[in-house]
């Protein structure tokens, strides 16, 4: 076996130019495939992480009937007790509660329908990262104690034609069904990568909103939970559902099925992508190995004549094919790793497409990411490709008749 491996390895370098061409093809294919996959994967992951950071957290609790039409009366009772209990769970990093109401936001110029989030700024910052989306020139996230402050998005500000310190009047139905409202002063303007979401969400202090809504004390509409590891979301959500059977506990994949879909879709896409690339490379390798068999007919005949059996001939050709593919794979993966790491830090700036990307929730700068286990997967796939690509040339070799093969020129 050792001798077969030695011969197979040295055989690769007999025709350096030809091997270099095949290796270059494998390297190019893998670098292109891996980098494109990492780019798509990075975009998807950023989309998911952005959603966690500003939209959904990892788990949300609601009154089961609240989600149907944001009915103000469908609240969660004993909020502070629940927050305390949930916070004690080892998997939980932070937890906060929100009052949520549909409202009409109006300025002197325009009005539009919005979702008003009544938040506790301190707890909110522990769970959501919206405060990081405010440029210093665009105010802050409830840093002053001033009452009736409001934080809105850049997109909504543009639509309502308001700026910092402008007033916005919110009109909504209170807890008793009466139409009420209040005037709020803009103290911060944020911008996330999801323009449609930005246009429909604005933030006020929970205490300010509770006062005008007249929602009873210690009741809220939503509890948002951030976990240490988002992969535990389903397990923890199921636990919470058992603990609070009167509430509806949903993990991020249920709140925004689209997020789960894009994660899984990227996995499938990457798989298909790599299979196409490796399939194409496989045919290239088959072609090269057929040329090798043709060139070495005499040598193969001699090997059979002196007693090298079919199994060993087959293994020798298979090893040679695998080595050829592996050399390309190792170089290709190293180059891919360097490129992905580099652009993973600097990012790929697609500012010219920012408007389009942000309209579907993606950032203009994307950071390619490829998990390390993917490299192992690719290596295994390349070895499998090598094995498959060796079968036809090896069978061709086995059909040779030693006495005829030796006579070839």
């Amino acid at each position, binding site marked *: 076996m050792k001798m077969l491996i030695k011969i197979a390895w040295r055989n690769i370098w007999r025709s350096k130019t030809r091997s270099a061409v095949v290796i270059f093809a494998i390297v190019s294919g893998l670098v292109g495939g891996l980098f494109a996959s990492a780019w798509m994967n990075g975009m998807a992951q950023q989309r998911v992480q952005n959603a966690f950071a500003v939209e959904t957290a990892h788990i949300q609790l609601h009154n089961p009937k609240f989600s149907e039409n944001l009915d103000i009366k469908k609240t969660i009772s004993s909020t502070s007790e629940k927050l305390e209990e949930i916070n004690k769970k080892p998997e939980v990093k932070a937890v906060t509660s929100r009052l949520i109401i549909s409202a009409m936001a109006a300025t002197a110029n325009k009005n539009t329908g919005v979702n008003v989030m009544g938040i506790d700024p301190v707890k909110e910052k522990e769970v959501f990262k919206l405060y990081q989306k405010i440029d210093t020139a665009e105010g802050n996230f409830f840093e002053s104690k001033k009452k009736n402050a409001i934080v809105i998005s850049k997109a909504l500000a543009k639509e309502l034609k308001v700026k910092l310190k402008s007033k916005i009047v919110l009109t909504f139905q209170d807890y008793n069904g009466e139409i009420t409202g209040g005037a709020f002063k803009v103290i911060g303007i944020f911008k996330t990568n999801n323009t449609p979401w930005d246009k429909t969400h604005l933030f006020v202090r929970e205490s300010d909103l509770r006062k005008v809504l007249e929602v009873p004390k210690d009741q809220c509409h939503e509890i948002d939970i951030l976990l240490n590891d988002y992969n535990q979301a389903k397990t923890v959500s199921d636990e919470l559902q058992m603990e609070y059977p009167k509430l509806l506990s949903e993990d991020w994949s249920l709140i925004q099925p689209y997020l789960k879909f894009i994660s899984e879709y990227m996995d499938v896409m990457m798989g298909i992508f790599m299979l196409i690339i490796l399939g194409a490379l496989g045919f290239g390798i088959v072609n090269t190995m057929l040329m090798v068999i043709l060139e070495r007919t*005499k040598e193969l005949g001699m090997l059979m004549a002196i007693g090298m059996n079919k199994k060993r001939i087959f293994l020798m050709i298979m090893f040679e094919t695998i080595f050829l593919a592996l050399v390309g794979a190792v170089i290709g993966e190293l180059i891919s790793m360097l490129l992905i790491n580099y652009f993973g830090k600097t990012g790929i700036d697609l500012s010219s497409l920012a408007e389009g990307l942000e309209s579907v929730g993606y950032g203009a700068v994307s950071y390619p990411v490829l998990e390390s286990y993917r490299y192992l997967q690719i290596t295994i796939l390349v070895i499998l490709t090598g094995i498959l690509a060796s079968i036809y040339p090896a069978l061709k070799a086995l059909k040779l008749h030693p006495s005829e093969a030796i006579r070839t020129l």
Partner: protein
Amino acid sequence: MSVIKVNGLTKTYSETEVPVHAVNGIDLTFDKGEFAAIVGPSGSGKTTLLNMIGGLEVPSSGYVEVSGQDISKLSSSKLIDFRLYNIGFVFQAYNLIPVLTARENVEFIMQLQNWEKSKMNNRSAAILESVGLGKRMNSKPNQLSGGQQQRVAVARALASKPQFILADEPTANLDSKSTTQLLDIMEKLNKEENITFIFSTHDQRVVDKARRVINIDDGKVVSDKVKKGVMSS
């Protein structure tokens, strides 16, 4: 004691319009330690006969027995194993494995036979020494002359101590000096190791060295002569 018995051996190629009888009913026996040359003009059937004795071609009729075993009845995979353990081949074009050194080429068959490493190393060193290539063990075939490559091929054929060696035109590509050296080496090894050598050749220098000369023409044995003094020796 006969090592090889060839009985009524025939090879007919029927692919052409008129069937060609490359070998036509040959009967021969070879004893242990023989140094025999099969001679004849081109197309006389020398190589075909040698190929059938070596199990590289299947006879149309007749059989080849090696140490009492009819090799014509072996399956192709068993025939490969048979060749591995019983026959050494020397080819006209040397046919060494170009990516292996002289020593690795010599050890190749021993490796296929799963020899113990130390024994294999000792044997390869000794045999390369005896063919005069002790100092070129680590050279690859492309670093050796034709004569040296053929000496490596002889060493490879002999290394695993086969029952007999078949050499098809071994000197055809060699100059006079290399031919003489190679023949001397083969004669010496034949005597030292008592291994049967059968050559196909039309090189007079080989014929001169051979102790038995079998002349064939049109696939038939025309004459089979043992040189004087050989029987008694």
